């Protein structure tokens, strides 16, 4: 890396540190980091990683700035309300440090775009605010073998850890599957003290810098908890374990078919009109009636699994979404519960109300 005079002045105070020096600054300059989420955690991470001189920073977020963001999301001001967060973030970051590149993705990370976006970066930072995206980011990092710097907050408490670093523990070694609905809260529903994402976000930024500088003390295989209310900190050790089997996800094209639900409540119903409007999903209908029950739906998207055989089902065909169906919606509800237990990472819904004349009519029209 050849720095001009201004750049040298910019980084002078950290180049003075023996742990960084001119070589460390070059490592920072030659690295690329993707920050998923430009909210409470994302803002301080972006701010300080830009100042540290990370050569290429990517930021993914499809949200716009709202007034309720401003008490904690430090890149934005009142005049930015209504603007895309990534656009403002890019502008602010390049003002902070014109010697770096900032790439923006004004969309949410999905199972369709995750691998393409993440593959272009060395390190990924989870600064999201919901479980589905956290699981998606983790899985994509495992598939692409990228280190993941995790941070999450709840009211006054935060968690930080580095996952998938040099084959170390992953998020699913700590929390194998989606939490139950009762555990699902985020800043918009639970509330949050503004300084907390600042504290946790900067600890994440610090871990990013440590990874780039080849520190021996990266917070890998550990989870650090911090309480802004009591000052309690604690660290637990996590080993890479087999709580979750990644082998299916590792296969080519599987991540794109794993459903990262927008709700963690796995016992959901779907209504007939919703079902038929979901044209962009690959849906598999699971007919749990007895094989001789009329009417019979013959189609490649329908599989027959009578309720009494449902607990012996070993495998489901590939689909984005599964919908259990029966005549009234009662047997299919039972089947859905059993299948949800057997396949916790598949999105399985129950057809509310069952196979009504409306269903049959829409089915005929569509098929």
């Amino acid at each position, binding site marked *: 890396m050849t720095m001009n005079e201004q750049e040298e002045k910019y980084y002078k105070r950290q180049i003075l540190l023996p742990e960084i020096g001119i070589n460390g600054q070059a490592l920072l300059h030659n690295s690329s980091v993707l920050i998923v989420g430009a909210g409470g955690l994302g803002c301080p991470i972006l701010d300080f990683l830009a100042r540290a001189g990370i050569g290429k920073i990517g930021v993914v977020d499809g949200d716009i700035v709202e007034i309720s963001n401003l008490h904690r999301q430090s890149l934005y001001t009142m005049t930015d309300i209504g603007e895309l967060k990534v656009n403002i973030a890019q502008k602010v970051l390049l003002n902070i440090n014109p010697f770096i590149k900032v790439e923006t993705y004004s969309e949410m990370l999905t199972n369709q775009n995750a691998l393409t976006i993440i593959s272009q970066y060395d390190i990924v930072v*989870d600064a999201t605010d919901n479980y589905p995206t956290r699981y998606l980011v983790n899985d994509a990092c495992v598939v692409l073998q990228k280190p993941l710097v995790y941070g999450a907050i709840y009211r006054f408490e935060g968690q930080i850890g580095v996952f998938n670093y040099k084959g170390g523990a992953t998020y699913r070694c700590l929390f194998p599957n989606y939490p139950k609905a009762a555990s699902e809260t985020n800043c918009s529903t639970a509330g949050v003290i503004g300084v907390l994402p600042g504290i946790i976000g900067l600890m994440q930024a610090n871990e990013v810098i440590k990874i780039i500088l080849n520190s021996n003390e990266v917070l890998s295989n550990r989870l650090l908890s911090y309480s802004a209310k009591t000052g309690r900190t604690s660290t637990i050790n996590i080993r890479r374990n087999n709580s979750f089997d990644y082998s299916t996800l590792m296969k080519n094209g599987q991540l794109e078919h794993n459903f990262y639900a927008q709700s963690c409540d796995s016992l959901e119903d779907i209504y007939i009109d919703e079902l038929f409007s979901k044209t962009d999903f690959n849906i598999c209908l699971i007919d749990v009636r007895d094989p001789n029950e009329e009417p019979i739906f013959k189609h490649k998207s329908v599989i027959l699994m009578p309720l009494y055989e449902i607990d012996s089902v070993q495998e489901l065909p590939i689909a984005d979404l599964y919908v259990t169906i029966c005549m009234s919606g009662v047997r299919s509800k039972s089947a859905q519960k059993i299948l949800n237990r057997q396949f916790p990472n598949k999105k399985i819904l129950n057809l509310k109300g069952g196979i009504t004349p409306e269903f049959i009519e829409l089915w005929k029209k569509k098929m």
Partner: protein
Amino acid sequence: MKVKFVYYGMIAEKLEILEENLELPNETINVRNYILNRYPELKDMSFSIAIDHELQDEIVNGLASEIALLPPFAGG
């Protein structure tokens, strides 16, 4: 055997305590079953269990000194 139980996030909120000392039976027990039996209000919550700062099998045989219940956090 006295063991310190440490609670985080929504679990600490639900129980309204950060930590407590509990007398565990002098035999091998499953910590999750023990705690859900004691606090049925936690049955709909997700949490991982660390025994003496190690995330591991949720079984205790009489040697633990601290058990932590860690729920996942979504916020950011």
